[in-house]
C-alpha cells in the first residue's frame, strides 16, 4: 500500500466519520466569478469549505449536514441569473450565496426578490444592494464602499490637507468611493477643500500618464480606490516618479493580502489603507480561525477566506435560528441576527439587512521583505453606517 493510497484511505475514513449519519443535506447554492477574480475567490472558496467542515463536524444544522453547491457565474449578470435559477430549480438549494462584482450582485439580488429566495451577497461592495436597490430577501456581509471610505475619512480629516487628488477605477465601485469621499470630506472639513479627479479604465490603467497628471495637479494628498493590477502599476510608477514624496496617500482595500502581497517589498510605506492584517490579530476568535485554516490548507488566510467563512457561518446561524429553510422565515431570523466571525460578532441589521462586519484600518509598512499593516485598529462597521433616517429615505419600502 503506497503512502498516497494510505493517505487517501485515511481521508475517506475521516470523511465518513466526520459526517455522522444525518438527514438530507441542506444545500447552499453558491455562485461567484471564480474565473474572473481568482485571486480573491480561491481563498474565499477555502474559507467556505472550512466553515462547512466545522459545522458538519459539530452535527450540522437542524440535524442535517450542510452541502455547498458551487457554480461559476462567468462574471456577468445574465449568466449569474441563469446559474441562480439552476441552483434553485435543479439543485434545490435552500439559499443563494456569493457574487463578487456589483453588477452581478445587484442582478442576483433582484432575482432573489422576484423569486422570493433568500440571498446573502457575501462580497459585493456596492452601496445600492442594501440601500437604493435593497430588498426583503437580500442581505450583505461585507462593509460597503461607503462604509470603508468612511473608515478612512477620520485619518484624512486629521491630515488637514486642502487639495486632494482622487484616482479611481472607472466603474461603480470607483465612482461610488470617489463620491462618498468627497461628500464625507466636505461635511467634515469646511476650510475650502478642493478635489482633482482622474478615472482609469479598470485593469488597464495607463500608469505613467496618470501619475504624471497627478504630479502636475500638485495635490496635497491623494485618495485612491485602485486595487489589484492597477494598484501595482500605480505604486511602481508613483514611487519612481516621486509622486508620493511628502504626500500622504489613502487607498481603499490596499491592505488586503490579495492586493498587498504581490507588492512584496515595494509595498508603499506609510499609506493609510483598509485591509486585513491576519498576522497580527490576537483576538481568540481570530486565532481559532487562523489555526484551523492553516492546519487545513497549509496556507494563510486572505480577506476572501474570512468572507467565505463568515458567509457560510451566517447562513448556518440563520437556518438554525429559523428552524427552517423557508425563505420568509430565514429573512425574519436573519434580521437582527448575531453571528460569530473571525472579526468578532457581527449583526445583520433589521433596518437594511447590512451586517456590521468591519474592516481593519492602518498604515502600510515593509517587514522582512513583505508588506504589512501597522498601527491598525478594527473599525466596527456599525460605527460607519449612514444615519437610520437616511437609510429609511433611500431604501425602497416593502
Amino acid at each position, binding site marked *: 500500500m503506497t503512502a498516497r493510497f494510505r493517505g487517501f484511505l485515511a481521508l475517506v475514513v475521516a470523511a465518513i466519520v466526520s459526517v455522522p449519519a444525518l438527514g438530507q443535506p441542506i444545500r447552499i447554492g453558491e455562485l461567484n466569478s471564480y474565473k474572473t477574480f481568482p*485571486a480573491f475567490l480561491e481563498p474565499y472558496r477555502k474559507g467556505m469549505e472550512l466553515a462547512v467542515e466545522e459545522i458538519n463536524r459539530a452535527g450540522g444544522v437542524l440535524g442535517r449536514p450542510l452541502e455547498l453547491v458551487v457554480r461559476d457565474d462567468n462574471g456577468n449578470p445574465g449568466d449569474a441569473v441563469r446559474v441562480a435559477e*439552476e441552483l434553485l430549480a435543479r439543485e434545490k438549494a435552500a439559499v443563494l450565496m456569493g457574487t463578487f462584482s456589483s453588477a452581478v450582485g*445587484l442582478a442576483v439580488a433582484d432575482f432573489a426578490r422576484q423569486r422570493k429566495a433568500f440571498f446573502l451577497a457575501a462580497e459585493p461592495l*456596492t452601496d445600492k444592494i442594501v440601500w437604493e436597490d435593497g430588498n426583503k430577501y437580500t442581505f450583505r456581509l461585507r462593509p460597503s464602499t461607503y462604509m470603508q471610505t468612511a473608515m478612512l475619512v477620520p485619518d484624512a480629516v486629521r491630515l488637514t490637507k486642502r487639495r486632494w487628488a482622487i484616482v479611481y477605477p*472607472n466603474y461603480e465601485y470607483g465612482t461610488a468611493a470617489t463620491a462618498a469621499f468627497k461628500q464625507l470630506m466636505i461635511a467634515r472639513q469646511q476650510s475650502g477643500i478642493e478635489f482633482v479627479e482622474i*478615472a482609469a479604465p479598470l485593469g488597464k490603467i495607463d500608469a505613467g500618464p496618470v501619475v504624471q497628471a497627478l504630479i502636475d495637479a500638485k495635490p496635497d494628498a491623494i485618495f485612491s480606490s485602485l486595487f489589484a*493590477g492597477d494598484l501595482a502599476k500605480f505604486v511602481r510608477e508613483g514611487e*519612481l*516618479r516621486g509622486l508620493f514624496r511628502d504626500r500622504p496617500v489613502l487607498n481603499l482595500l490596499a491592505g488586503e493580502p490579495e492586493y498587498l502581497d504581490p507588492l512584496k517589498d515595494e509595498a508603499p510605506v506609510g499609506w493609510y489603507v483598509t485591509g486585513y492584517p491576519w498576522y497580527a490579530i490576537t483576538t481568540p476568535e481570530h486565532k481559532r480561525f487562523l489555526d484551523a485554516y492553516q492546519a487545513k490548507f497549509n496556507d494563510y488566510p486572505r480577506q476572501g477566506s474570512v468572507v467565505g467563512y463568515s458567509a457560510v457561518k451566517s447562513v448556518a446561524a440563520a437556518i438554525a435560528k429559523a428552524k427552517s429553510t423557508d425563505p420568509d422565515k430565514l429573512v425574519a431570523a436573519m434580521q437582527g441576527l448575531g453571528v460569530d466571525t473571525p472579526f468578532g460578532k457581527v449583526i445583520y441589521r433589521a433596518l437594511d439587512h447590512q451586517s456590521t462586519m468591519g474592516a481593519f484600518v492602518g498604515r502600510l509598512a515593509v517587514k522582512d521583505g513583505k508588506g504589512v499593516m501597522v498601527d491598525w485598529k478594527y473599525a466596527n462597521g456599525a460605527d460607519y453606517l449612514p444615519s437610520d433616517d437616511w437609510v429609511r429615505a433611500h431604501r425602497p419600502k416593502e
Partner: protein
Amino acid sequence: MTLPALLIQLVNGLASASSLFLLAAGLTLIFGVSRIVNFAHGSLYMLGAYIGYSAVAHFGATIAGYWLAILAAALATGLIGASIEILLLRRIYRAPELLQLIATFGVVLIVEDIALALWGPEDLLGRRAPGLSGVIVFAGRVLPQYDALLMVVGPLVLLVLWWLIRRTRWGTMVRAASENRELTQALGIDQAWLFTGVFFLGAFLAGLAGALELPRESAHLGMDLAVIAEAFVVTVVGGLGSIPGAFVAAILIGLTRAVCIGLGSVELAGVVVALPRLTLVTEFVVMAIVLAVRPYGLLGSAPPTPATTAIPEHRTLVRAPGRASAVAVIVVFALAALLPLVGDEYDLVLATDVLVFALFAASLQLILGGGGLASFGHAAYFGLGAYAAALAAKHGAPMALAVALAPAAAMLAAFLFGWFCVRLSGIYLAMLTLAFAQIVWSIAFQWDSVTGGSNGLVGVWPPDWLAGKQTYFYLALAVALLALVLIAWLAQTPFGYALRAGRDSRLRAEASGIDVRSTQWRAFAAAGAFAGLAGGLYGFSKGSISPETLAIPRSVDALVMVLLGGLNAPAGPLVGSIAFIGLQDTLSRATEYWRAGLGVTILLLVLVFPMGIGGVVQRIAARLGR
C-alpha cells in the same frame, strides 16, 4: 496645462506606444501573410509575461541574466506560437477564414486555464530591470529609465522587421506569399513552413512585448483580453499587414490617450468634459475616425477584389427550402413545445436561452453568411435592444411595447452604423463594427443616470401572467419561430439573392444592376433589428441588463455559435446555439477548468466539422436527397 507638462505627457505616451507597437507588430505580420485573425495573440502576450516572470525570478539578478531571461521568454512564446500553427491552424487553412478566428478563440480559453493552473491566481509583480530602475530628469520632470529604453526598443524592432522583410530572401518569400499564395506555391516555396516561421516571429514579438512589460506591470490573468482588442485596433488603424502603419497607429493611440489623461477635465462650450474617462474607448474612437476617413487604415492599401468568392461553398446555388425542410421545422418546434412536459424548470430556462441566442446568431448569420459582412460588434444591437426594452419598461411602458421598441432601437443604430460599415469590406468592416460596439458599450458603462452605468438596470421582469418559466418559454419559442422563419424567407426573396450576389461577386452583381452597397446596408439594418429583438427577450428573461450584453465577449459568443452551426446552414444558428449553451452549461458544472474544457471542445469541433455542425448535417441531407 503648461507646455512642459504636455511635453512630458507626450513622452509618456511614446513609452506606452512602444509596447503597443510590439504587440501589434506580431499580429499584423501574422495577418498579412496568413490572413488569420489571431485572437490568441493576447494569450501569447500573457504567456510571455508569465514565462518572463518565472525566468527573471531565477536568473534575473544580474543585467545579463535579466535580458537573457526576457529573450528566453520571447523565444519560448515563439515556439508555443509555432506549435499552435503546426498542430491546429495548418489543418484548417482551407476552411472559411473566420473559422480560424474561432479556433484561436478556443486557444484563448485553454491558455487562460493553463496559466491559472501553472502560476496560480495571484498577481505576480516581477523584479525591476537591473540597472534601469532609476529615473532620468527631463525638462524639469522625471522619466523612468525603463520608459526611455522602451522608446528605443519600439523603433529598433521596427527597423529589424523592416530589414527582415525588405532585405532578406525569407522576407521576399513572405511578401510574395502575402500577395499571391497560389503563385508562391507554384514557384516551389514551401508555404507551410513559411507560415510556421511567420507565426513563430509573430508569437516571439508578442512574448517579447509581454516580457518587456514586466517592470511596469504584474503578470496576471486577464492580461490577454485586456490587450487583444487594443492590438487589433492598432493593427487596423495602421492598415492590415503594414508594420510601419502599426508603428504610426501605436504612436497615435498612445499619444491621444496620454493627452486625454494629461488634460484632465476641460470645459468645452460650458460643459465640463472629463477627458480621462474617455480613456475607456480612446482607441476605438480613433479607429472609427480613421476608418471613416481612410477605409484601409493609415498606411494600408485596398486588397485586390477577387472576381468571385474565395469560399467554395458559396459558389453552389442556394435552393429554396422544399417541403422536407418545412416539415423538419414543424417537427422540431412541435417537439420543443413538448419540453415543459418532460423537463424541469431549469431546462426551460436553458431552452429559453437557446432560443434567444439562436435568434441572435441567426441575425448575425443573415449578414455574415448571406452577405459576407463579418460583424465583430454584433452585441451592440443585441444590447441596444435589451437596453431600449429595459428603459421603456422602467419608465412604465407595458412589456409588449418595450419588446417592440427593442428591434426598432437596434435597427435605428444599425442603420446609422451600417451606413459607415458597408463602405468597407472584410476585416476593416469587422473592426469598424467592433469600434461602434465599443463606443456604445462605453456610453452604457458610464452614463450612470440613464443606463445605470456599470451596474446596469435591474427589475426588468415580465408581468405576472408571463413570468412563469413555462409561459415565457412559449413566448420565446413563438417569437423565435416567427423570426427564424422570417429570416429564412428573406434569404429566398430577390433581396436575399441580391445580397448573396454581392457577396459572391461584387463586380458581376453591380454589372447586373444590383446596388450592392444599398443591399448590404438594408441587410445590416435587418440584422440589427433581429438582434435587438433577441436582446429585448433576453432582458426580460433575466430581469436585469448590464453593459456586458454589449461587450466583446457577447459578440464573440454569437460568432462562435454561427460558425459552430455552419455559416450558411439554415439550421446553423439553432444548432450552434444548442451546442454552445449546452456545452457551457454542462462543462461549468462538471469541472473547475470549464473554460479549458470549452476551448478543447471548440477546437475539436472546428477540426472535425470545419464547415460547422449544421453544414455537415446539410451535406448529408443533400446526399440523401439526391
